């Protein structure tokens, strides 16, 4: 269980994090989203006890990170931004050090080391200095360090940054398999990741929480949600198609993309219009190549929300 209450952090005169409050329970995977410099990393550092908040409080499993830092940190696995490690050490020595400091016995350590090495596929590099490893391996050593003691709470700052698509997929699988029973917070700026692993997303801009919902609910906010796009053959009369679509009762708006030969119809009140449009297309014998029902576009929601907040700030 993570509880953040009214977290504020100011650097000099600048407010980096402004009154952030949320709770995350077991089984939840919270995605922390936001533009660069929005305050994601600072918030996570406050949760992990690296940065002291200017105001507000944070708790890990009921332990105040301020008053009982050692007990709170014992429950926490934390991957700092950039996955710093000790470069001159080998992953084996590095993980042994982490295990010692976390109070694992030799037997526990052997068992846990075997587990994380298998999960993160570190076997082949276990005895090479970390600084000689590729970026992907370094990131995975950082992840191994965070999950070595099988903590109930995991805070991972950009866990997939710098990984190739296969490795990203593996790390997401790892997060998914660990998720039941654990509290996991990840920050990312890759929106598909939120959709792929998170049960909940918080969007933060200028230090404030501007959205806190399930990813599906966020996607429903998109103006593309339930929109239908038609891709037509080059012989089609796009203007006529657009005109006919616009005349349908359920259609609010139509957009024509000439170079792509695509017409997109946006429904009123998120109504499902795909079958009606299909019927109309058959009736009018439109030369349809593709008919596509849009779920919604997370990146568009993200831009809308964060841009609106920035605009409000500046005016």
């Amino acid at each position, binding site marked *: 269980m993570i509880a953040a209450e009214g977290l504020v952090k100011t650097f000099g005169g600048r407010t980096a994090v402004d009154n952030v409050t949320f709770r995350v329970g077991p089984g939840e995977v919270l995605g922390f989203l936001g533009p660069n410099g929005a305050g994601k990393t600072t918030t996570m550092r406050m949760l992990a006890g690296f940065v002291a908040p200017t105001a507000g409080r944070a708790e890990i499993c009921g332990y105040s990170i301020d008053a009982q830092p050692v007990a709170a940190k014992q429950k926490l696995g934390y991957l700092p931004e950039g996955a*710093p490690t000790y470069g001159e*050490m080998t992953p084996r*020595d590095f993980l042994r050090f982490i295990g*010692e400091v976390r109070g694992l016995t030799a037997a526990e350590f052997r068992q846990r080391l075997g587990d994380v090495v298998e999960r993160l596929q570190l076997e082949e590099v276990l005895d090479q200095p970390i600084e000689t490893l590729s970026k992907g391996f370094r990131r995975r050593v950082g992840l191994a*360090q965070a999950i070595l003691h099988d903590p109930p709470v995991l805070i991972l700052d950009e866990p997939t940054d710098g990984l190739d698509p296969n490795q990203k997929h593996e790390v997401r699988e790892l997060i998914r398999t660990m998720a039941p029973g654990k509290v996991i917070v990840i920050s990312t700026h890759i929106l598909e990741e939120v959709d792929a692993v998170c049960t909940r997303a918080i969007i933060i801009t200028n230090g404030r929480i501007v959205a806190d919902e399930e990813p599906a609910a966020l996607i429903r906010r998109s103006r593309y949600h339930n929109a239908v796009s038609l891709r037509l053959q080059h012989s089609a009369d796009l203007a006529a198609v657009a005109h006919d679509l616009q005349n349908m009762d359920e259609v609010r708006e139509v957009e024509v993309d000439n170079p792509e030969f695509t017409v997109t119809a946006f429904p009123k009140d998120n109504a499902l219009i795909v079958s009606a449009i299909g019927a109309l297309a058959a009736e009018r014998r439109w030369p349809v190549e593709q008919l596509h029902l849009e779920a919604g576009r997370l990146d568009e929601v993200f831009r809308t929300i964060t841009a609106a907040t920035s605009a409000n700030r500046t005016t």
Partner: protein
Amino acid sequence: MGVISSIGKRELQSYFATPLAYVFIVIFLALAGLFTFYLGGFYERGQADLSPFFNFHPWLYLFLVPAIAMRLWAEERKSGSVELLMTLPVTLWQAVLGKFLAAWLCIAIALGLTFPIWVTVNYLGEPDNGVIVAAYIGSLLMAGGFLAIGSCISAANRNQVVSFILTVVICFLFMLAGFSLVLDFFSGWLPGPLLDAVASLSFLTHYAAISKGVLDLRDVLYFLLVIGVWLYATTIVLDLKKAD
């Protein structure tokens, strides 16, 4: 205690994983020998004692200890590993003490490896071995004082070169606090008792007392206090600046 030794062990491993420890030890031994035999006139004096050896230790430490201390925290802050260390279940004191003890142990190893000169002097004559033991203890304590100062300066900034230079300057002031070089600077405007206080901070005075074989509790306490105060300052500086 377990955590402190884990942190210390890791730190010491990293000294020996890089050339740092070897370079330090070799240079220390080479310079110690050079000073003793050429500048100190070890043979020419015709006396069976190690004062030409110990007399040069403060000057050796003045440059060599800051070189080891400069990376203590500056490097952790620069590489970002300080964030990792500080989010492990350790207290600031455990981290500061663990790293300090590792560096001190490295210096102790270098100091210990000067034993051939002790063997030599015993072979050549009949020195007072009690004095030599006391001088070794005093030398190690003084190195600890220099190191604690360096630890604090290293925590205050992430640039190792700046750390080195500042540490050398501050160590120099502490070393010569009892001499006119430093005292003249204060004598114009500091009242007498405070001037005496400054003078009593001198590393050299306390070290000289111990290395003559007078292992006075006050001198030992002085160095332990210097170490404690500067390490305490390190924890405060770290707490304020670790995330900058």
